[in-house]
């Protein structure tokens, strides 16, 4: 059974804290993504990575950074959490080649910054 696992389902952090959201996939996919989901705004791409140590900014990278030291793990870092980063964060992975390049999502992390 294919899996994308996010480290936490719910997280509450204080303003100014450094926050790490971890994502692991077991499908040997080259591409991994971090999205945030807010009501009415759909899934907005924060960062994605197409290979180990390779990354590219998405549409809303400000206030975030990422790390991909190993193929299976993609971390999202909030350098100094702010209340406007309260959101649902979704990690996804997808292959580059194959009969289907569908994306598989983790269960999401609901982050609240107080």
């Amino acid at each position, binding site marked *: 059974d294919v899996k994308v696992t996010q480290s936490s389902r719910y997280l509450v952090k204080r303003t100014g804290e450094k926050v790490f959201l971890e994502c692991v996939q077991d499908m040997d996919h080259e*591409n991994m993504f971090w999205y945030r989901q807010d009501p009415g705004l759909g899934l907005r791409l924060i960062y994605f990575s197409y290979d180990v140590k390779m990354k590219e900014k998405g549409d809303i990278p400000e206030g975030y950074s990422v790390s991909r030291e190993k193929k299976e793990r993609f971390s999202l870092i909030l350098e100094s959490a702010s209340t406007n980063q309260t959101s649902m964060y979704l990690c996804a992975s997808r292959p580059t080649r194959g009969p289907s390049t569908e*994306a598989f999502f983790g269960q999401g992390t609901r982050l609240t910054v107080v």
Partner: protein
Amino acid sequence: GQQVMQIPQYQHVQEGEDFTTYCNSSTTLSNIQWYKQRPGGHPVFLIQLVKSGEVKKQKRLTFQFGEAKKNSSLHITATQTTDVGTYFCAGGGSGGYNKLIFGAGTRLAVHP
């Protein structure tokens, strides 16, 4: 950058009525994918369209990819309460690294 617009944002239908959601991209897409997110869940892949003018069916769902590969639609015939959720289109850009840009989604409510 690449943008994917999706309309409508919400749709309320009576059970048995049809439903359509539309997706438009600012750039030509290499492919388009559709996902469904049930309330409280995460997006789950439905289908991928690759060819210009392609039409695919999954039971009561019909997916179309435009001739110019810049627009797509999902049509559900005779909706059921199990169709409730948010439907997203996601565009794969032409060239470069399998970036996947999602539309804002259409939330479907079905009244019995």
